[in-house]
């Protein structure tokens, strides 16, 4: 009996596994509560968004915390993933079964956001620090504005697109509108649900955490810590920067696919894909602890849910939210608190060891 317990604990000794355990625990608890019918419809509607913001925070942490490059355009990558996958699902709305359609939409969304990440990375990753932030910020806004005025249709002659109006497309009568300018994409099948979202969150966690513990991950972190030294030991800096940035964009795209398949009307508005969203994601990453993947997930979940759940408090909502931001900042960044936390961890570990030997 005790041995079994030991085994269970040893699974949790690796800090990556603790993260998976937390996510799965949240999933089980929420599923039970949902089944029991005690979750308000407001809260249950927030669960999938909570997951995709956690996913995009994990992706951004790969860029900011692991690669050490500041990106302010992750809402843009999310936007790309959302629109391309939604357009795909529109085309195959009636011809493919839900599961397969969503899987393919996922592949499409991830592939396109990775492609854009790659293309933008070619010029942008030659820049360092603030310049990268400025360019990605602009990129996010450009993408949002382009998709806001993009008309895309499909008929027997193939794809038509225009940046001015629906009529410009000149489609055959049998044509199908995929993206309708500022009206966006309507009627995307709602293929995403909480379980799929949790599953994708775990996938993104596995990808990023395993990457960190691999050959490529070490190379990426060495560039973050000292580019010149990394070059001096034979690391191909450009290659690994591209790899990390592309993967980061791909993960943001995955979050975008969840986004578009959880909402009936997808529009490229500033509320969902503007720079303030990119900043909000960055806030999750910074407050969760730069480079701490678990921190990103927890911070994204808490800081997303909190203002939503405080809607009832009306004008005090933002006051409480800002106080929480300050408190989280102190807990995660103040040196005195960090020391105290380390001390507590040491005590906790020691206690565990004693219990183990006794």
């Amino acid at each position: 009996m005790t041995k079994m317990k030991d085994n269970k604990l040893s699974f949790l000794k690796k800090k990556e596994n603790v993260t998976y355990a937390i996510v799965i625990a949240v999933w089980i608890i929420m599923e039970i509560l949902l089944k029991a019918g005690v979750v308000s419809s407001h809260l249950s509607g927030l669960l999938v968004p909570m997951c995709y913001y956690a996913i995009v925070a994990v992706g951004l942490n790969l860029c900011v915390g692991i690669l050490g490059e500041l990106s302010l355009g992750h809402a843009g990558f999310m936007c790309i993933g959302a629109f391309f996958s939604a357009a795909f699902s529109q085309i195959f709305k009636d011809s493919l079964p839900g599961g397969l359609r969503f899987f393919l939409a996922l592949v499409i969304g991830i592939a396109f956001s990775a492609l854009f990440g790659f293309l933008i990375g070619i010029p942008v990753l030659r820049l360092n620090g603030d310049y990268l932030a400025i360019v990605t910020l602009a990129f996010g806004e450009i993408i949002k504005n382009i998709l806001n005025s993009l008309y895309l249709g499909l008929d027997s002659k193939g794809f038509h697109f225009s940046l001015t109006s629906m009529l410009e497309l000149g489609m055959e009568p049998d044509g199908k509108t995929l993206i309708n300018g500022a009206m966006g994409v309507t009627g995307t099948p709602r293929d995403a649900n909480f379980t799929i979202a949790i599953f994708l969150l775990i996938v993104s966690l596995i990808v990023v955490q395993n990457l960190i513990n691999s050959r490529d991950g070490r190379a990426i972190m060495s560039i973050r810590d000292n580019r010149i030294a990394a070059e001096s030991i034979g690391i191909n800096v450009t290659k690994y920067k591209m790899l990390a940035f592309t993967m980061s964009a791909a993960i943001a795209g995955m979050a975008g696919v969840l986004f578009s398949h959880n909402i009936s009307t997808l529009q490229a508005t500033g509320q969902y894909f503007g720079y303030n969203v990119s900043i909000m994601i960055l806030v999750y990453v910074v407050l969760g602890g730069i480079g701490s993947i678990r921190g990103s997930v927890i911070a994204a979940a808490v800081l997303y849910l909190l203002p939503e759940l405080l809607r009832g408090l009306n004008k005090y909502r933002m006051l409480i939210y800002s106080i929480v931001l300050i408190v989280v900042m102190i807990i995660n960044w103040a040196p005195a608190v960090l020391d105290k936390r380390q001390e507590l961890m040491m005590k906790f570990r020691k206690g565990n060891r004693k219990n183990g030997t006794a």
Partner: protein
Amino acid sequence: MALLEVNDLCIQFGGLRAVDDFNLNIEQGELYGLIGPNGAGKTTVFNLLTGVYRPTEGQILLDGKNITGHKTAEINRDGIARTFQNIRLFSKMSVLDNVKVALQDRYHYNTLTGILHLGSYKKLEKEMDAEAMEILSVFGMDKDAELLSSNLPYGQQRKLEIARAMATKPKLLLLDEPAAGMNPNETAELMDTISLIRDKYKMTILLIEHDMKLVSGICEKLTVLNFGRVLAQGNTKDVLSDPEVIKAYLGDE
């Protein structure tokens, strides 16, 4: 044939010839010193050898192969590793990972294997761990493997930088002021470390140093640079007693 052969190397920054007409021959297994007053161009020579700067003229041959104009990362793969005047460790990574990242050219698995921790991942990571620990134990640092490299004491950080350079299995090791900022005890320990890697790995070493005790103690040959030009070259003893060299260091009477 010399391991490193540098012919008529020259670099010009605008109107300034920082290094001019620089020649150097280092034989396999030699411990060679590069000295000179501040601003003489010693670190510039290192930066030229490691591809940080492209020489304006001249060529660099390593083991008979022309490596002039190669990029820094390529030059490391060609067989030159270096340390830095101001320590450049991967400060947020563990001591072990600092060495492991330097091993990666020789232990290859692709990104997908790394992300999924498939097949060869476990085996190769284990081998990397073993080799990294072996290198660390040569430097007496195996017990600190899990420590964050920035938490090491100064002397140990210098050592780790050398260990990391050695992990890339270079033919030639460049040490840029390894004893800078060290107290006499640490310097003595450093001299032991340098002798150790020479004996154990038969390593060819080129070092820049201001500490004359270290230079006269371990270097076999010296080149003295002054204002970017070679002032004297030859056996340590002869060079250090050369009146020109003394004049460059201490000035005219």
